[in-house]
């Protein structure tokens, strides 16, 4: 089957094998096939070592697959990276310590060669989107973990990419901040129309955020289930108390249990 060029992200038979030491080669990903349509919010969930972060890096062209084909909006990952079609958010905020908040958000625009006025206008608009307008002059260490991650999201979106890749972005945050950030990401997703590929190991987070949840197994990393999340949009705080929410949690949990018992 060929790549779906109208998809935001299309993966066909993608495998990644790491040349291992004593234990021989490690098959991190095996035969991954997935089409993500523009505007979808997809979560990748699975036990640690299932290769979900590896898959994200293959999409981002930070890692070459051993076999298979990948396209982003019909382009190769390398073209997409050079055209800055995606923004990326990591588990650590990865802000540059020596830059104040606004200058951190301006970084990708600087690399793109935009002039000062345009950079500041765009960065300020993003700062407003993540509700940190008063903090443009702060250094990263002066912000809480949640605020730092909001700056990282602003930085990933400031050049208006059509795709947002997020690698366990809220993994280091406390539960309350986390739920708050989830709501904020959903608001940004709806207002920008960005396609989101989101790696997480939290079942409630995956269900609450996504249009589809992709369940993966470990050793080798494969896709075992794709679960449609038919909760209504916009998701609200009360969505987490909805019966359907609990049913979907159970569905994802059981899919993950099947994965565990197989391996």
């Amino acid at each position, binding site marked *: 089957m060929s790549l779906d060029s109208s998809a935001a992200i299309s993966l066909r038979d993608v495998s990644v094998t790491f040349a291992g030491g004593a234990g021989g080669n490690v098959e991190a990903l095996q035969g991954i096939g997935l089409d993500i349509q523009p505007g979808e919010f997809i979560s990748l969930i699975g036990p640690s070592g299932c290769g979900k972060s590896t898959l994200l890096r293959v999409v981002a062209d930070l890692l070459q697959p051993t076999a298979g084909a990948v396209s982003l909006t019909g382009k190769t990952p390398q073209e997409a990276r050079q055209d800055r079609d995606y923004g990326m958010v990591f588990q*650590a905020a990865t802000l540059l310590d020596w830059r104040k908040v606004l200058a951190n958000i301006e970084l990708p625009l600087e690399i793109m060669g935009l002039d000062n006025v345009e950079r500041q206008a765009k960065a300020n608009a993003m700062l407003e989107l993540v509700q940190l307008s008063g903090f443009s002059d702060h250094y990263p260490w002066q912000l809480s973990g949640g605020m730092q991650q909001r700056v990282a999201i602003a930085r990933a979106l400031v050049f208006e990419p059509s795709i947002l890749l997020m690698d366990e972005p809220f993994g280091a945050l406390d539960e309350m901040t986390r739920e708050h950030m989830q709501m904020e990401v959903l608001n940004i997703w709806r207002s920008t129309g960005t396609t989101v590929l989101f790696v997480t190991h939290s079942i409630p987070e995956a269900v609450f955020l996504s249009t589809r949840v992709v369940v993966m197994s470990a050793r080798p990393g494969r896709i075992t289930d794709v679960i449609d999340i038919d909760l209504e949009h916009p998701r609200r705080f009360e969505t987490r108390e909805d019966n359907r929410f609990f049913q979907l949690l159970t569905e994802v949990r059981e899919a993950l249990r099947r994965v565990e018992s197989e391996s």
Partner: protein
Amino acid sequence: MKKLRANGPAVMVFFGGIALWEIVVRAFSIQGFILPAPSAVVTALIQQRAALLQAGIGTFLTALGGLVLGAVLAVAAAMAAVRWAALRDASMTVAIAANSTPIIVLAPVANSWFGILSPWSGLTVVAVLVFFPIMINLVKGLLSVSATQLELMHSYGAPDGRILRSLRTPSALPFLFSALRVAAPLSLIGAIVKEYFGGSQERLGQFITSKASLFQFEEAWAAIVVASAVGILFYRVIAAAERRIIPWHASMRSG
């Protein structure tokens, strides 16, 4: 007021030590060539102030010039070592070996290369002395960027030059400053020891050796005090530059 309270104990220990020194020298009638009394050193300091000022400035300029020269060469070498991995492994091994050698033995050699009165002999000794600690620290600093930071830059399609400018160089600055804090006193040692091996009379090293050979130990000690003051001043200048240039660094955050 707060500052006074914080520095109070240090000031008391300093002046207490001086007073004790004076008392011990007088009480046991210690000879001046073993240990002159602080009061005698202060007297010599005042009498010789013009000569000492000139010598202090002369030695300081040699130390500063050599430090700048050594630092510029070390920055260039570190950048090359980071850019070409093959060069890095070779040059770091040599740098670490060279850093373990007492490079000060170069002083008489430099004198014969450039001539005893040439400013280049002093500058060379100091530059060689400070080159290795700065280079080793800088290479470490330039390589101190995290894998995620590099992934971030690659995700923007940033070329190597941009990564060097926007990521590696700022990450290396704290390493550069801690190297300079070590190198500043080292540069003074290099300058003064080179002067022990000959050169202009208007330098601290020559001042100390000539006064000592004439049994004018109060004056030699006065020159030691000047050398120490220049060293402290040098260190403070670098610390102030550090506060201005990397105010974002963890070591600069007031608690």
